[in-house]
């Protein structure tokens, strides 16, 4: 039982990390916390549903839905956020809130308010034996997928030219701009990648939780808690805290089901009392 709870927790933690890492690279790069991020995550779930009803192929939707979400995110960045950048963070922050409200309304308009079930693809159905336990294959697949994306992200960040530019821009944006690199284009790309990560998480979680308009609030809040506890802009912080939070929530539901949601926020409060900028955060 402990093992299966632990795998549950890991799967959820990895999904939280996918969302949180997207949030973090956008924050590290642009200095703005994208409050619409959870809405992009939810939007991807709906895209997945749409592709699935049209083609019936889960793998195709796993490929297309995050790309669609990233495309949508790029449009949002290009049309709205870029113009706001000169006016300071408050405007950007509230702008993303406005965008999340519009996405929520749009989702309700196009897909209705009831929750849409998404079946687990046939090849991932069934149970596997892990440590002598029967365990649903799909959750293991989610962990594997997240690890794959994580490795991909590390490779892009540390082994490619784009990653080099991104890391440089995180530490000194103006200098990189002065060196003749098109910073707005890099911002747009990074925003797109962040939304793509949220999109992957959205598709991965859709068969577990189904897709409904409250999804953004439910999972998004957990992701924001992870980001704040880990320290804004810190990827390793997000990774560690996401796993802790995932485990806390799954074991919390097992042992103190009434107070499970409080556990996560309580943990966050505890961390913030000792370190106001998060576990791995640095003071601005």
């Amino acid at each position, binding site marked *: 039982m402990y093992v299966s709870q632990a795998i549950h927790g890991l799967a959820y933690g990895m999904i939280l990390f996918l969302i949180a890492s997207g949030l973090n690279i956008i924050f590290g790069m642009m200095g703005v*916390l994208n409050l619409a991020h959870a809405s992009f995550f939810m939007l991807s779930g709906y895209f997945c549903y749409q592709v699935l009803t049209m083609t019936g192929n889960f793998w195709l939707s796993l490929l297309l839905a995050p790309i669609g979400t990233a495309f949508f995110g790029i449009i949002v960045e290009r049309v709205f956020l870029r113009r706001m950048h000169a006016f300071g963070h408050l405007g950007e922050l509230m*702008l993303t*809130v406005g965008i999340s409200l519009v996405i929520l*309304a749009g989702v309700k308009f196009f897909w209705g308010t009831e929750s849409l079930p998404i079946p687990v693809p046939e090849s991932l159905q069934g149970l596997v034996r892990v440590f002598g336990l029967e365990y649903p294959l799909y959750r293991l697949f989610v962990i594997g997928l997240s690890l794959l994306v994580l490795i991909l992200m590390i490779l892009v960040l540390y082994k490619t030219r784009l990653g080099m530019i991104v890391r440089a821009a995180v530490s000194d944006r103006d200098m990189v701009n002065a060196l003749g690199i098109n910073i707005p284009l890099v911002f747009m790309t990074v925003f797109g990648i962040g939304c793509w990560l949220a999109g992957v998480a959205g598709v991965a979680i859709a068969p577990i939780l189904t897709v409904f308009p409250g999804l953004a609030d439910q999972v998004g*809040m957990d992701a*924001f808690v992870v980001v704040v506890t880990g320290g804004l802009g810190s990827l390793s912080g997000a990774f560690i805290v996401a796993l802790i939070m995932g485990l806390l929530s799954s074991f919390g539901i097992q042992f103190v089901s009434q107070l499970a949601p409080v556990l996560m*926020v309580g943990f966050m409060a505890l961390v*913030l009392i000792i370190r106001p900028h998060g576990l791995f955060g640095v003071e601005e």
Partner: protein
Amino acid sequence: MREKKVIKIFLWVILAAFLLGYPKFFGMYYVNLFVTFMVFAVFSLSFNMLLGFTGLLSFGHAIFFGISGYGTALALRHIEGISLFSAIGIGVMGAVILAIILCPVVVRVTGTAFAMVHLAFGQLMYVLALKLRNITGGEDGIGNFPIPDFSLFGLVSLPLKNNPLNFYYFALFILGISTWLMWFFTKTPFGQIQIGIRDNAKRIDYLGFKVPQSKAVIYVASALFAGVAGSVYGLFHNLVSADGSLNVLVSFTAITATLIGGIGSFFGPIWGTAIFQILEEITIRFTEQVELVTGVVMILVIMYAPRGFAGFLALLKMRWQMLQAKRGQ
């Protein structure tokens, strides 16, 4: 100059007459709407003490609104024969104590972290209110608690329960005083320090003022007035629930109102609340997509009118003065 003063007093008299006579001209529906407007105007004003005057954006201001509502409701339910003002006082004390507990943490963080910490604390309070069922009543909240009469030093005595008209005057009294106190607060030397903290915290520090302590005092004061609003809101509905008072949407109401009205202007949140409420009232009649309208309005205001309605008014005033000056030449 004297002429101007006379005009000012005249305008105040007209405003007072309008507010006192409002229930005579409009029906009960609009009286209740106006009470809601007043409650959220005061709540937004208290929020603007943090955002507009001190530069602290909170995503969880509803915790003070909510805890005060719960405090008042619990006091009225469990303490026999408690007077109205003591019950409100207990609720507001709850908000103040919560603020005092939180302020050692929150004065150390700024910017996005401050906002997110409050989002999380707000969520914590919301979940606690839902889960601690034997105290807060869970999803149902605390409803139908007794409401004592509103008496002022034995001069007037108005029964409030199931009497929206009397409640209107009571709310006008309490919330009017709160508004005046907040206005007064921004005019005191201490209120000027908060503007200094917003614009240049380091400089205020060099001038010898204690920045974190000042922030803490403002934070507690803001919580106090949010508490007054929350308490009156609970009494108004005779119901305090997690969804009505502690939800993150309640916090966002204040943020939206402040943004639409104009950050940094004292009266901005009042304009904003009025505009927001009228907008919502119209929207509900035509479409169920309230979120869409709120979101679109928010995006438009931020992109094209970053100083909100108060900024627009200031611009008009400036134009008018320029016109006058030209004519005078």
